[in-house]
């Protein structure tokens, strides 16, 4: 029946877009649960240092990627749309870098200032 309908309104069926089997949403939902549990366990088992950071960032980016790609349907959009949204976001890496540099400098000057106060 679905086939017959599609034949009757080929344009309408195309225009409606973004129709995907329910299974893919359930699978991604399950994956997000697993990834959230994993990132919670990073804290629960008190991982430290670079391992902690690596795991947190990896789980964070995987979750973000799954949500944007499947739940928000980015996977099925045209590239002009995908790039218009994702490329400007990359600019934030510059702000992140500036923030880190500034923070290190502030921390250093505070260290010098408080050290001077001791003598």
């Amino acid at each position, binding site marked *: 029946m679905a086939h017959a309908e599609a034949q009757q309104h080929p344009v309408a069926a195309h225009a409606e877009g973004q129709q995907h089997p329910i299974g893919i949403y359930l699978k*991604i939902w399950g994956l997000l*649960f697993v990834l959230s549990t994993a990132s919670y366990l990073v804290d629960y088992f008190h991982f430290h240092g670079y391992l902690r950071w690596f795991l947190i960032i990896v789980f964070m980016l995987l979750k973000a990627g799954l*949500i944007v790609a499947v*739940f928000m349907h980015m996977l099925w*959009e*045209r*590239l002009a749309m995908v790039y*218009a949204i994702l490329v400007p976001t990359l600019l934030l890496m510059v702000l992140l870098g500036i923030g880190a540099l500034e923070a290190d400098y502030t921390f250093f000057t505070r260290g010098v200032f408080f050290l001077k106060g001791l003598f």
Partner: protein
Amino acid sequence: MTQASRTSTGQALPLPEGIQGIVADWSSDQRAFKNVPWGKAMMWIFLLSDTFIFSSFLISYMTVRMSTTDPWPNPSEVFGLELFGKSIPLLLIAIMTFVLISSSGTMAMAVKFGYEKNRKMTFILLLCTAALGATFVGMQAFEWTKLIVHEGIRPWGNPLGAAQFGAAFFMITGFHGTHVSIGVIFLLIVATKVIRGDLDHERPGFMTGRKGKYEIVEIMGLYWHFVDLVWVFIFAVFYLW
């Protein structure tokens, strides 16, 4: 008065894919976003601007946290929950995360049933999403109460360590909570439209002449998934750092 008949906007030529497709879409001297309803493209643009707002908050938080010489309060302990006489680290936050992810799952399915014109399932799933969202806001209110009343945390200082903790916490989670609350209201409005049959009968919405279509469920979904997306980043950099 006669209305000019609308010429078909269907594509005469197949759209090229890949990099060629990007160049063709942007240089087409028409709308750049093909195959995407106008409202959806605008929601994406709004979400992009919102991304920059939340990123500014999170990056400023990183900057103050890295530059403070006082010890940062340990979020694992601050947000722990006492259960059966045992304190479990970050339990409340973990539950909030699962609640929000579940609401994203029900939202995604609501969009699917919406495009299938399954009015009842769309309505039920939208209500589930709104209920989970409201649960999230409720738990956040509980968390704020605990921090303000029992731990004495204020935006200008706290007894646990670095003064910047309160400012960053209330600003970031407050802004996110506001987004969730607005999302719940937005969900209830869309759910009402769905169950009334406004979308099936293409009734125009409030303050617009555009016909009601099931794509508004997807546009609503984009906003809701974005709220979940922001929480993923807050969870990682605020609570797990």
